[in-house]
């Protein structure tokens, strides 16, 4: 019995990695992770940059969505004595103390993907800058594209729906606000609808919504899985391009297919690859040469539509989009 224990123990020791490395160590602490295709592109950007700069990086998050895990992972990263951290900021108060603690130890922190809503004010978190899209401008871009397409087809938008899949996410709130800021002054009612990242369930919810609101003819989805839910609904109901005007945030092969066939007007891309890549790059530059930026980097909105979708599809196959 004792020999078996000893053997197992030695095996585990052998499997654990070598200690004492001189390379820089960075950590990403985010509210979402590899369970969602969107984040995999950010992770690829992060890993490519890590190879390019010869640094170690680690992605720390719940597989799908969690804010309460963030302060714990931040504390773990600090305990690991990392040289830099990339964070998302869906809820600044939840992570404030952990961020401040990291900062006290001189660890540079870059915000990616979801900006600190207090940035620039007295309550801003002590971070370097933001690498990501302007969510508000993204929401506006989709609203404008929907209005322009309706005009081109000679119809009017009667009412719009905005399904939200991750409740409690300030980035999605900003997209919603941007979307409404264009449509509501044009006299169009925008309904919020709570869905989830479960495609089948959300398609059912959309069906229920459209049953109750048959006049609605515009929808903006907030990610690849909700877009899938909309496509499932639209296919089962036999909708044709132009019946409902659809624009979406973020990208996926299915979304591109629907842009080509005219079901989707545009996808607002935030170029997630850049968010992972640039965060590592700037953490490296900050550590190596003390360099930083004096303002944020906007990686979006970038509009993907019928004019550029083919090129994007090529790059998507390689994991860059």
């Amino acid at each position: 019995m004792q020999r078996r224990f000893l053997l197992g123990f030695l095996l585990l020791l052998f499997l654990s990695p070598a200690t004492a490395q001189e390379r820089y160590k960075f950590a990403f602490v985010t509210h979402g992770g590899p369970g969602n295709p969107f984040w995999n592109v950010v992770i690829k950007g992060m890993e490519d940059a890590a190879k390019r700069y010869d640094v170690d990086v680690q992605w720390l998050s719940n597989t799908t969505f969690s804010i309460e895990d963030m302060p714990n992972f931040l504390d773990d990263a600090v305990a690991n004595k990392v040289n830099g951290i990339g964070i998302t900021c869906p809820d600044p108060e939840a992570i404030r103390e952990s961020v401040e603690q990291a900062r006290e130890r001189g660890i540079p922190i870059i915000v990616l993907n979801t900006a600190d809503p207090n940035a620039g004010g007295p309550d801003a978190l002590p971070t370097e800058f933001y690498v990501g899209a302007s969510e508000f401008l993204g929401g506006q871009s989709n609203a404008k594209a929907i209005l322009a397409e309706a005009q081109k087809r000679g119809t009017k938008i009667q009412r719009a729906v905005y399904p939200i899949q991750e409740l409690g996410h300030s980035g999605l709130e900003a997209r919603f606000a941007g979307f409404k800021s264009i449509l509501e002054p044009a006299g169009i009612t925008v309904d919020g609808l709570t869905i989830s990242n479960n495609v089948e369930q959300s398609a059912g919810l959309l069906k229920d919504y459209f049953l109750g609101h048959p006049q609605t003819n515009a929808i903006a989805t907030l990610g690849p899985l909700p877009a899938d839910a909309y496509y499932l609904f639209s296919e089962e109901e036999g909708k044709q391009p132009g019946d409902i005007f659809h624009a979406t945030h973020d990208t996926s092969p299915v979304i591109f297919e629907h842009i080509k066939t005219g079901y989707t007007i545009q996808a607002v891309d935030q170029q997630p690859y850049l968010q992972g890549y640039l965060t590592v790059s700037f953490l490296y530059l900050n550590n190596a040469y003390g360099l930083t930026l004096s303002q944020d980097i906007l990686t979006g909105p970038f509009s993907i539509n019928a004019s550029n979708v083919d090129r994007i599809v090529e790059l998507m196959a390689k994991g860059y989009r």
Partner: protein
Amino acid sequence: MKTTDAIRNRLARSPEAGAAAGFSSIFLIFALATPNTFLTNSAISSILNSQAVPGIVAIGITLLMISGEFDLSVGSILGASSLAFLYAAVNGIHILIAASFGLLAGCLLGLFNGLLLIWTGIPSFIVTLGTMLVYRAISLTAISGGRIIRYADYSREPPILEIPGITILVAVLALFVILLWTAKDIRKTPDRSLSTQILLAFALLFSAYLTLEAIIAIIPQPFAFVTIDFFSMLNGRLDIVPGNYRASILWWTGLTTVFVLILTQTRFGNAIFATGGNAQAARLQGININRVRVTNFVISGFLAAVAGIIQVARLKSVDPLRGTGMELEVIAAVVIGGTLLTGGYGSLIGSAIGTALTGMLRTGMVLIQVPTNAFRGAIGAIMIVAVIINNLVRKER
């Protein structure tokens, strides 16, 4: 009997021995693999801080599982009661009354679980699977439109309590006397376990320290008001020790001690074991097993609410998904701690060790730089190893 045999027998009799062995092995592995980072205050405080909340929830789950029941709705109860608390607090209600709202919500939701169980006779696994979704809907409908309720949006000042010093002194003194009284009785219990005695000794020492501190601070001006930041009291950084240790760890330890004493030293504790071991036999002994079950569900709901409020004190916000997935994490920790899924056997100290073990796995994985995509897989694999070690130790009996 040889000394080693005696120790082995003693270990095999206590359900937490396996968890302790698993914990020590994993601890040693991480300590040897990353000596510069693992054995530091930041790493150890990170483990304990993150596990205090699930640790408190695990107390209620352990009592339920020993009595042969499950509660899958604790994550949703935690979410709903956190919301009740913070919603009341940001709407100008006194922070203590707001906290009572949160606790009441937890108790009521737990009571509903228990009543549904005994009225319908449906297994608790199914009942609480249903209420898990129903209770989640409370948070989802109350916080509509993708919002987070943040304390900072309503007030820039932390919630302050003003209490006459003498009240605090009386409270800590009472705690010390109660613990001393329990310690006097515990020596008469024939099957007292070593871990219970150690825990009680620590509790006595700590409460003696608290009493001394209170006497020194309060006696010169007994009627002066003491101001306490409510959030710091529940989950602020502890200034008395170096590192980032938080008050939630003390609440976790304190509540575990209280419930260990209830489970091992009271008639109610006996009734819990009897109900889960053999309900029929328990009924014949005159135990009202339905009352035991309902009480346990209320306790479980109450503790989920306590954990939720303590978590709000750190995060200072509530989102509609708060607590999602916590039930499985906690049940896993309780099982690692040696409590049987079939009921009748288990230990609260084991659950505390199991909870700490799951937290240690997470922090340890970060420290040994496990690649992103393998992270959760590695946690799962090591968790299985911990349970195997746990079972090996217990088979030694």
